[in-house]
């Protein structure tokens, strides 16, 4: 599948929301490689050996983020739950921070938050806050259209 790799790379070079060096284990390989992992642009997590060249990206949609053993969390995708990308952090605290940040990083999460706030504001003020932006009719912002 072709994709706009160049643009993803430039996305990777932008200031990251979160970046750290963690030990990463790819699903198939046994031993881990020490990689720098960065959360960028909300839906991509890029990892790079040095400072500048990402070697890969994980698009964070339809994925599960689970705490594994101490200091370790994993990312796996819905259609292949056994295939896990594992990340070993330096501390439990760092591990938790990453889990929290990653869980919030999906487009889906953003969308749900948006719907939630919209609903709340509407209940409170009687007005639809999305109207001023002209996006109140968009299907993706309607309550209950996407499965949970």
């Amino acid at each position: 599948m072709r994709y706009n790799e160049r643009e993803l790379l430039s996305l990777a070079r932008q200031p990251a929301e979160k970046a750290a060096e963690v030990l990463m284990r790819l699903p198939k390989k046994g031993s881990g490689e020490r990689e720098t992992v960065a959360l960028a642009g909300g839906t991509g997590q890029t990892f790079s050996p040095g400072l500048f060249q990402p070697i890969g990206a994980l698009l964070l949609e339809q994925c599960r983020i689970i705490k594994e053993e101490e200091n370790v969390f994993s990312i796996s995708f819905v259609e292949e739950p056994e295939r896990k990308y594992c990340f070993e952090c330096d501390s439990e605290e760092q591990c938790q921070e990453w889990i929290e940040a990653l869980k919030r990083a999906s487009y889906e999460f953003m969308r749900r938050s948006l719907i939630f706030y919209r609903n709340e504001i509407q209940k409170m003020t009687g007005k639809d806050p999305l109207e001023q932006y002209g996006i109140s009719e968009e299907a993706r912002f309607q309550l209950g259209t996407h499965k949970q």
Partner: protein
Amino acid sequence: MKLNERSVAHYATCDSPADHAGFLRKRVERHHHHAHHHHATSYQRRWFVLKGNLLFYFEEKESREPVGLVVLEGCTVELCEAAEEFAFAIRFDDAGARAYVLVADGQAAMEAWVKALSRASFDYMRLVVRELEKQLEEASKTLARHLSNPALLPLQEKPTVLENGYSTWGSGGGVPGGAACPDRDGGHVKPPPLPPRRRSAVGSTACFSKLHIPVLVASSPGTDRALQSPQPPGNTTTTTQEYSPLLKRLYFRWTKHSFFFFFFFKEAVLHAPLFYVRNLCYAFHDVVNVCILCRGAE
């Protein structure tokens, strides 16, 4: 660069609903090896599916796997000049990056796509969410004041985050997971979020020449300064756009006399399809985002 392609492709075809879908013709980009660009542009008809900020395209509507993907971050969507009618382009900030030129079946389809794509990015979503968060805070404060009894105003639980794509509503119970972004600034009033504009400065300040200039993005209607491109909130890179002198005059005239501009525009831009002008009228009255392309009067 490696990408979890299989998961991404799966996401494309899984049963989560698409935000927009339809046939579009995609311009085929060829590499030019010779000096003079002798190229016949050709287009391929593809089935496009927009999910979140991912634009997938398939060979056929029934294809089981996408042929390609465009990640819609850091891009702008513009009407564009092409031999084809109803053409628009997805362009990225990176000057050397290619543009995706797409052609819709008709006026309505084109407008729907441009709207959907220009608001598809995660950045945009986040801007709106932050804005709403603030509004909710203000609304609760106001309400609390009116009620003069804050105890009457329980804030609802925010969606419980279990897993990405699996977050559920706390119905009557739930941990406020919150969508708070750690770097939000407090108290800074921002204008309503706009879809991202093209960030690179327009090179030519000569009169309107040759290439299309994506320029005008109107903000809230009714302000005289609507056309001075407010900074999109949240952008870390801000740019000033150089407008050609002619375009500056257009701005001025537009705010004073929309009809004059209508007329002037028609005169100045030869062969401009009428829909460009119509979009201006939309913009004047009811605006989130308008991109207008002006072609050089040659």
